[in-house]
């Protein structure tokens, strides 16, 4: 997959204070869902605004489709390539959803027929076509968020940039939005999401960048987990006891073993090659195994470890 967005040494400072975004570099491939994770004040919204060309970097650059976002001669190309959902939907509340969409469609120089066709398709996908002529002020928060996502997609951009797209949505609306984003990836659209909902990021993202002003880590969720944590396996038994620890600790590849009744918890260097030997040892010892399950660390564990480590480094100082 080729890169759609390239970020090089991106830095943005606001006086007074340290840089909100500090020498961040990454690239986003075409057709992937790329999540920006970070605590409040980590620079996620600033990064989103920099990626969208709404604010300019203090140093470094963002390229979208190879075009530098600060190139004022190509503003039209850049903004037509991007669909932005800001942190707040920012709809015109005294107008209807259709009036909002017509306005934004015309800003992107879309024809009337295209606006109507796209609006119908997208509003129907979000189940709000029936209320298209109601004033946005009468909508729930979730509906406003959906209309704002439709607005971002109306001009059929190659790249969607979404700042906290699932924030404040009820579980049903959040699921339909998640499914919608996955569908956008299936259609080949690139999606950049800023979120602090780690569960959503884990489920949605092809790759995750953890930032706290600086880029702390960048990889797929599963690679991040395996990079930071060892593989753990839960072996649940019917007739186990703490004495089982003595049998397994001597086996090769066992890094750590603990007894959490009624299960044995093992940390292994290479579970695929070492686990068969562990299981047969336990069976030979007369233990009746109920199940053997890999215990996954969550993205939350990864995130907390990275952010804690970063805090620790900042606290230690130079």
């Amino acid at each position: 997959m080729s890169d759609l967005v390239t970020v090089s040494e991106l830095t943005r400072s606001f006086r007074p204070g340290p840089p909100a975004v500090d020498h961040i570099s990454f690239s986003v491939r075409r057709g992937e869902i790329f999540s920006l994770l970070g605590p409040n004040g980590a620079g996620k919204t600033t990064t989103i605004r920099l990626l969208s060309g709404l604010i300019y970097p203090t140093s470094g650059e963002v390229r979208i489709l190879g075009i530098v976002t600060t190139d004022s001669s190509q503003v039209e190309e850049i903004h037509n390539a991007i669909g932005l959902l800001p942190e707040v939907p920012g709809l015109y509340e005294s107008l209807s959803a259709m009036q909002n969409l017509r306005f934004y469609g015309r800003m992107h120089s879309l024809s009337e027929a295209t606006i109507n066709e796209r609006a119908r398709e997208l509003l129907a996908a979000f189940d709000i076509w029936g209320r298209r002529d109601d004033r946005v002020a009468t909508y729930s928060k979730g509906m406003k968020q959906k209309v704002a996502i439709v607005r971002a997609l109306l001009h059929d951009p190659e790249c969607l940039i979404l700042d906290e797209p699932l924030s404040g949505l009820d579980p049903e609306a959040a699921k339909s939005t998640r499914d919608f984003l996955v569908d956008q990836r299936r259609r080949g659209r690139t999606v950049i999401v800023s979120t602090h909902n780690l569960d959503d990021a884990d489920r949605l993202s092809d790759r995750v960048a953890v930032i706290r002003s600086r880029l702390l880590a960048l990889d797929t969720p599963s690679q991040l987990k395996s990079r930071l944590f060892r593989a753990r396996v839960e072996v649940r038994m019917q007739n186990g006891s703490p004495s089982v620890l003595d049998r397994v600790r001597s086996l090769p590849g066992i890094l750590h073993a603990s007894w959490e009744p009624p299960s044995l918890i093992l940390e292994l260097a290479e579970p695929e090659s070492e686990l068969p030997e562990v299981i047969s040892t336990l069976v030979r010892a007369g233990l009746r195994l109920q199940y053997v399950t890999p215990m996954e660390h969550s993205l939350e564990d990864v995130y907390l470890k990275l952010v804690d480590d970063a805090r620790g480094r900042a606290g230690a100082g130079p």
Partner: protein
Amino acid sequence: MKLERVRELFHKDFAELRSNRSVFISLFVFPALFLLEGIGSAVARSLTTSSSPASLVASYISGASLSLDLLLFVPVITAVTIGSNSIVQEKTTRSLEPLLATPITDTELLVGKAMTPFLPGVIAVWVCYTVLFTVIDVLAWPVTHAIVFPTAITLFQMWIIVPLLGLVGTFGVLTISSWAKDARAAQQMSTVIELPAIGLILVVFLFLPSSWEVLGAFAVGLAIAAYGLLRVAIWRFDRPSILVNWR
């Protein structure tokens, strides 16, 4: 600059303005009052017997002048009332961010944003002037058998002074609107625009003799002020800092 975008922005702003009924209706209060004053004065004069057609014409002209002069406040007041909400409202509702994410240029945004504060006030005054001229001419015709209005000076007021006052109010308030860091500050600072303009109108039209020299100097002064305020508005309109500095 794409005129379609400017027109769309104006249509959108005007639709929003219309939906805010209290503000929208209040825009018509001053023009209606000033127009009624002029019509009332004309009707009163038509009921009095005059010695000659010439003195009746003079009487109509002097009677209408207060109303015509008072109507000059309207473009400034309207521009400030609508304009102080223009960019500020986009900021408070956070709709400026998605708007700036469209391909709209700064010039298109400024021109589009200027049209809603500018046009309603100017058009309202043009309509009031036209109605007042017509009413006076209809009332005077049986006696004078001549057109009383428009005079050359009132035409100059209508087509030159009124739009210039609208531009001064509009560009001034847009500058403040993009400068201000919160809505209250924008509204308070906008009144600063009104006061000198209203003071000038009072001095020029109510206290100085109505002459081409005075009107010409006033028009040149307004044109310079409008151009200066436009330059400041363009200079101050920095989209990154508007997004970042707003609270």
